[in-house]
């Protein structure tokens, strides 16, 4: 199947509607998590779900647009991290494509892979644009590491990875459980979901 046909299939009206609500889920689920006062954000669950159902391109687009829209409507700082969200969707889609979302432990592994991949993009943005801090809880880790003599770059590396590891593993597990629980008739309409449900 040529790339053009693959893209056309990946972006049917159904997929577009899926991406639209996935963007909303990325933004809204933060509310559910803060309700429970849990140390995760779950702000890329929609991105990973789309990646599992409609492939890496659709997943990447979901992540990118989530941060752009979030930047447009309330927090332009999020827009700066749009490339990070793009990588999350892309890598999640690729993990699924190569069978890394079939079992629950593979989902955890994918969560780790996603964390490492996103750090490559997140660290330079955080250092060069934000001087290593973003006003979130993770800044304490950076401050502590700087105090123990680490230079800014390595301090941020450790901060980004620890900050994202729990969240991305939890996100991958939740996305895996959701796709497993979706109605058969719904997932059947997404050819790529077979990589998860098999």
């Amino acid at each position, binding site marked *: 199947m040529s790339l053009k046909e693959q893209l056309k299939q990946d972006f049917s009206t159904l997929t577009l509607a899926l991406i639209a609500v996935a963007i909303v889920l990325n933004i809204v689920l933060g509310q559910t998590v803060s309700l429970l006062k849990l140390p995760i954000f779950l702000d890329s669950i929609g991105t990973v779900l789309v990646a599992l159902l409609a492939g890496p391109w659709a997943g990447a687009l979901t992540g990118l647009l989530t941060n752009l829209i979030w930047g447009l*409507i309330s927090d332009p700082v999020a827009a700066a991290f749009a490339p990070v969200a793009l990588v999350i969707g892309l890598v999640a889609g690729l993990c699924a494509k190569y069978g890394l979302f079939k079992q629950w432990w593979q989902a955890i592994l994918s969560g780790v892979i996603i964390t490492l991949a996103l750090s490559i993009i997140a660290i330079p943005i955080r250092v060069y644009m934000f001087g290593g801090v973003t006003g979130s809880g993770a800044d304490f880790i950076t401050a502590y590491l700087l*105090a123990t003599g680490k230079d800014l770059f390595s301090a941020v590396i450790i901060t980004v990875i620890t900050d994202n590891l729990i969240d991305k593993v939890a996100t991958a597990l939740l996305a895996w459980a959701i796709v497993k629980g979706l109605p058969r008739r719904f997932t059947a309409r997404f050819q790529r979901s077979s990589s998860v449900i098999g």
Partner: protein
Amino acid sequence: MSTHFSLYQPGSSYLHRLHPLTKLTFSLAAAVVVFGGPGGWLAALFPGLLAMLLLWRAGLAWRAALTIFRLLALLTVVLFLVHGFLNPHNKSILLSLGPFGLGQEGLAYAALVALRLAATLAASLLLTVSTQPAHLVQALAEAGLPYGLAYLLGSPLLLLPQIAGRVRSIQAAQQARGLKTEGSLLQRARALFPLAAPLIFSTLVDVEERSLALEVRGFSAPNPKTSLNELVDSPAQRTARWIMILLAGLLLAVELSWRVYASH
């Protein structure tokens, strides 16, 4: 539409009447100049001041300033603390507090980062405060953005309050079956799936009906689309856009070639 989900401030100032692409180009150009430009104080100060001036003439400066303060206050404080005390480059200590010294270099760096963020934010607010999101999406669609992408940029904003409203009714439904949402970290973590899953399932299963409704309203009709709302554009604005793009591109090219030259 509940306004707290959008920075848009309805109004009829000259800024509101400017074509969305003109404002978008200014915001992007400003970001390129601030982060891609020569990088000194001037590169950050000039776009920021220009943006605030334009906002001030449209009577939106006060709201923009408030938004900038709300978004950057905490970040700026953390910047000054972290870099003031902990920045490895700190040489000349202005004030020492026990083992830590407040370094001048760290403070200067923190100030520069904060100023850059404020300038970029002011430029982006010039767009977001004075442009209704649907008009920006329409402008992009008319400029050739694929219609599917325009839908993805436009619809989440309106779907947000609808789906956000479900969080509360799902919490109610699960609490009615004895789910506890307070207590130990483990208990709260266990409550995550019963609260998150129904929200995701009901939203995803809803997608099918939503996509059918779009199809029936001609979403994928092959013909070129028209639009009810007319976006006023003018040759002057069109040339202004090209000038801004050229300027930003020029600055970026100069900076890149300088860095390449300087590194040899």
